């Protein structure tokens, strides 16, 4: 027989009892049987406004003592219907929607969207643009992981790593601002290139950041990686096997912490990632600690990638010379009738994508980020779908926390590295 659940809600006023019946208390009828203590499960609600849920996530937990019996996540509190909005915008106007989904790694989302549309249209971006986008994506991978690291440390009870990592993040904010003019909502890509070429000295700024962040990581690792409290809170907590992780759709660092070496950059390479020299860190236990270690190591690898990409950054134009997608230069516009027509059509009608579709997967900071775009030949998407890595990663949380302790729920949730803007979209 299933255990009877008992409603525990002290904030409820007596006249607002469930089923419109007076709640137990002063007004309760005396003939209600007292529940036996060993048959009570407690209902705990975490969120949606709770700092440890990293956004507006709501977890409903049924507890037997301190053990989690059931966990039901509720999402949708931040739903903005980006996919529907995208169907009412032309192809370039969708770009600002992408960085509002994952505001922790906006450039990755900008790039992934532009790549999907370019693939559908058969556009090859310039060599310089490819390398600049690699730099942008690796920079934002570190950017996102640093926020995860800081909040993770807060959740485990350590405050100093949060300050260290946010100090480094501030440098990326400045780099974003120097390049795109915005610190979070970058909207840096356009179909066929970027909104501008990188400013003078920006590459040196990225190089300085890549050098500095590795040192900061050493300091944070010194504080956390062998810290007894940290080990006790994370090792052996939230374990998932590699086979289960695949079946449940884990991707990114979460999947690799369970020992599955699936990384989109290696398995479905794009932008010449196969020619870069970098390693994919793999965990072996699939617990919270391994997910921590995998992300720490990934930041070091991304710093390596940044150096390599900066070394090979070629000269040349950043945008394709394709009048279908990129505005002609001002000089051409003023002197050349054909350029003026292209300019007029692009401005008035927007980019027109031929009928077709494409699914472009990139390795986002949270996992496999897929952009699925469908066109019917018009200047607006028929369908624009994001394969949300955090959404699928979060769906595993009941499996990870059920049977564990209540305190571990916080650590498991922190180890998944979710961003609710992208889960709810």
């Amino acid at each position, binding site marked *: 027989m299933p255990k009877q*659940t*008992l*409603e525990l*809600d002290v904030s*409820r*006023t007596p*006249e*607002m*009892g*469930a089923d*419109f*019946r*007076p709640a137990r208390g002063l*007004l309760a009828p005396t003939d209600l049987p007292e529940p036996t203590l060993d048959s009570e499960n407690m*209902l705990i609600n975490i969120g949606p406004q709770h700092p440890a849920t990293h956004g507006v996530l709501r977890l*409903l937990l*049924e507890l037997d003592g301190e053990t989690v019996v*059931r966990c*039901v996540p509720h*999402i*949708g509190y931040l*739903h903005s*219907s980006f*996919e*529907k909005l995208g169907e*009412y915008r032309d192809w370039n106007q969708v770009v600002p929607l992408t960085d509002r989904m994952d505001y922790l790694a906006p450039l990755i989302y900008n790039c992934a969207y532009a790549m999907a549309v370019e*693939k*559908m*249209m*058969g556009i090859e971006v310039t060599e310089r643009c490819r390398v600049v986008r690699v730099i942008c994506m690796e920079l934002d991978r570190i950017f996102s992981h640093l926020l995860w690291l800081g909040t993770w440390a807060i959740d485990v009870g350590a405050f100093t790593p949060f300050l260290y990592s946010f100090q480094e993040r501030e440098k990326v904010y400045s780099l974003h601002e120097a390049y795109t003019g915005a610190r979070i909502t970058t909207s840096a890509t356009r179909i066929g290139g970027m909104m501008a070429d990188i400013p003078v000295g920006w590459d040196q700024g990225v190089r300085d950041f890549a050098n500095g962040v590795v040192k900061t990581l050493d300091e944070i690792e010194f504080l956390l990686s062998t810290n007894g409290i940290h080990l006790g809170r994370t090792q052996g907590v939230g374990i998932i096997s590699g086979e289960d992780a*695949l*079946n*449940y*759709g884990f991707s990114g660092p979460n999947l690799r912490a369970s020992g*599955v070496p*699936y990384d989109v950059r290696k*398995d*479905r390479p794009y932008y010449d990632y196969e020619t870069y020299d970098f390693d994919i860190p793999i965990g072996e236990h699939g617990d919270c600690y391994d997910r921590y270690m995998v992300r720490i190591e990934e930041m070091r690898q991304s710093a390596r990638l940044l150096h390599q990409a900066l070394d090979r950054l070629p000269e040349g134009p950043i945008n394709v010379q394709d009048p279908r997608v990129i505005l002609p230069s001002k000089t051409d516009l003023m002197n050349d009738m054909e350029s003026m027509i292209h300019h007029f059509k692009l401005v008035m009608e927007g980019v027109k994508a*031929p*009928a*077709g*579709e*494409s*699914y472009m*997967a990139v390795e986002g900071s949270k996992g*496999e980020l*897929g952009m*699925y775009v*469908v066109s019917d030949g018009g200047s607006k998407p*028929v*369908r624009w*779908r994001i*394969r949300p890595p955090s*959404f*699928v990663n979060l*769906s*595993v949380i009941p*499996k990870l926390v059920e049977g564990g302790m209540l305190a571990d729920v916080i650590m498991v949730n922190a180890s998944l590295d979710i961003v609710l803007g992208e889960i*709810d*979209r």
Partner: protein
Amino acid sequence: MSESISSGPVDPESPGTAVSGGASLPANLEAVHPSVPALRARFDDAILGHELVAGDEHIVYVDPARNFEILQWLKDDPDHRYTYLSDVTAVDYGGGRPLQVVYQLFSIPHRRHLRIKAELSLDALEIESVVPLWQSANWLEREVWDMFGVTFRNHPDPRRILMPEGYEEGHPLRKDFPLRGRFSRAEQTRRALSQDPEDYYVPSELAGGREPQLVPWQEFAGGRPPMSTTHDSTPTSHDPSARETGEG
């Protein structure tokens, strides 16, 4: 030739294998992707078409009545091993055209990507759930139900996921759904205010398929339903009628 068996549903004019996108045409399209001829050989009449888009992306149209066995075979067959289900979504082209349910598969051992589509006519939006094959389909199929109204048979938890459980305006990503919703802004506000937040913090939420949380609008118009006959209730901060007058 196997290509001439049927036509790709999206492009009925071109026979069998349709190509779009910027890439040049390979000599034998299906030889490029080993899973496509294998699928044709195994499930002859259930494979309704094949399409190559964006240069290297293969789409196979399958019979929606047999999606489960086809996907199961793709997952388990040692030559294919599509162990990773990246995404389940749907595409509505509008204009009464059939709605497509899209599965993005990836085979990690063979490093192959394959897209499976099943077309459902708008009056029969129902398809077998693939959650028994991939647990990752759980929330993804819930989202397709929420956004497109496709019913997944044998889904373990067939609730809405992004929209609230009592959402009555339909399925937002359908083309016939207006951008701002079906109800007026005033009606949307009234409905939001008529929800009882206390309904969200009860054990029945754990039980899965629970009662809709909306207090029916007609009842709400006449005040709250009687809560208890034993005592008079003074308006509290929880009382939606008190709140509505305060904000209205």
